[in-house]
């Protein structure tokens, strides 16, 4: 279990405070919030990346190394598909891993694309290479920073399914501004607004939820209301 508690400020201006977020082992946690609310800062804190913000608090249980996937696929244009999947080992100077890269590419449905230049891939294919590269890192904790934000609706829903499938059993933190995505993927959901972070009951069972479930649509609507800060008459049922 990973737990983050504390407050964060940028130039003495509070970004968020009173944060208490728990990532359950082997589960998907979704952090939902509008742009600029500090979601990515939180994720970068976990990843050990520079945030430009001051954090005072404690992070317990976070592993030293994480796998990280962002909205941009960040494929290196000078490397082909296979070399991109092998980026981590390349950077650490570990040779080999070819068979695993091959297997991962097949797992994400890109078998036979090994030698392609990445410039020839579609947006969805590129994000699948990025997924294979993330899996190559083989980390317990996987941080996803709006990884499907730039994809069209069809590709996005397919990528959600593929990603859930590939990351089964790992601890995942998904940062998103899309209520539908949070509802579909979160086994626990945190809503982050200027007022603070609150936990919201999520759907039962591992992701992805079938996107046409009535309860899912209801949850999605509720999340959007909360995100907008609408005052609700009673509880939404």
């Amino acid at each position, binding site marked *: 279990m990973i737990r983050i508690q504390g407050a964060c400020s940028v130039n003495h201006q509070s970004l968020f405070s009173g944060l208490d977020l728990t990532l359950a082992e082997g589960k998907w946690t979704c952090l939902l919030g509008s742009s600029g609310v500090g979601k990515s800062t939180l994720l*970068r804190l976990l*990843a*050990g*990346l520079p945030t430009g913000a001051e954090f005072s608090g404690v992070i317990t249980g976070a592993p030293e*190394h*994480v*796998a*990280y996937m*962002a909205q*941009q696929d*960040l494929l*290196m*244009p*000078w490397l082909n598909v296979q070399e991109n999947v092998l*980026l*981590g080992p*390349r*950077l*650490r*100077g570990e040779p080999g891993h070819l068979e695993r890269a091959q297997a991962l590419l097949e797992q994400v449905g890109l078998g036979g694309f090994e030698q392609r*230049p990445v*410039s020839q891939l579609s947006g969805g294919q590129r994000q699948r290479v990025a997924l294979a590269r993330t899996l190559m*890192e083989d980390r317990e904790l996987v941080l996803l920073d709006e990884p499907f934000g730039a994809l069209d609706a069809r590709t996005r829903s397919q990528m959600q399914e593929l990603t859930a499938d590939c990351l089964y059993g790992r601890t995942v933190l998904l940062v998103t501004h899309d209520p539908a995505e949070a509802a579909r993927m979160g086994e626990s959901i945190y809503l982050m607004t200027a007022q603070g972070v609150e936990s919201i009951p999520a759907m039962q069972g591992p992701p992805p939820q079938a996107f046409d479930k009535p309860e899912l649509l209801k949850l999605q609507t509720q999340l959007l209301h909360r995100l907008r800060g609408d005052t609700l008459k009673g509880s939404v049922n």
Partner: protein
Amino acid sequence: MNRALYALLVTLVLLLSWQSIVWLTGVPRYILPSPQRVLETLWSQRNLITEHALITLLEVVLGLILGVLLGVVTAVTIAYSRLARIWLRPMLLISQALPVFALAPLLTLWFGYGLTSKVMMALLIIFFPVTSALFDGLMRTPTAYIDLAKTMGASRWSLMFRIRFPAALPNLASGIRLAAVYAPIGAVIGEWVGSSQGLGYLMLLANGRVKTDLMFASMLVLAALSVGLYFLIDASLRRMLRY
């Protein structure tokens, strides 16, 4: 195909207007020789011109290779190390305040009348554009690339050579393109200041003897050499770098 046709057409029009100026004004041939006469000289003096052109070409190519190598090493060093940046960058900038042409006599004094002083001249003139183009690229690696590499546990060294350097290669390519244009200038200036070989030398020689046609022929070859070199380098850079 179309572009080649246009280029040919433009050349023809230029040649024609040149020829007609000579016809219409009756300007003496030692002031402005007709294109026909220049082409005749080019052909009759082809051995002499080729001999000197090869020397200039050698100077340019050597200067290019050494200048690019030195530029790359310098750019990587100052991008990698903050200490090197503090010490070397002001020196680089100050060195640019001196016109390289002013150094030509000194280079001739130091490195003699031969090949070396011209290679040094070409090297010096291209060193700065190459260094600054690559350095710019190295300092502008997308932060997201660096973040990703850091989460993967990349060392500073591998961040430089596996991420920042390849990401900056398009910038280096622009620097090399500029260098291809500047290097012949450097070599010819070097030849003007002191030499017994090369197209620059031949031009001065022809000028002094009022063999304006030979001077024009040398200039034509120099221009062809520079343009040819530029297109060769541009085409090979395009082939090598597809991003």
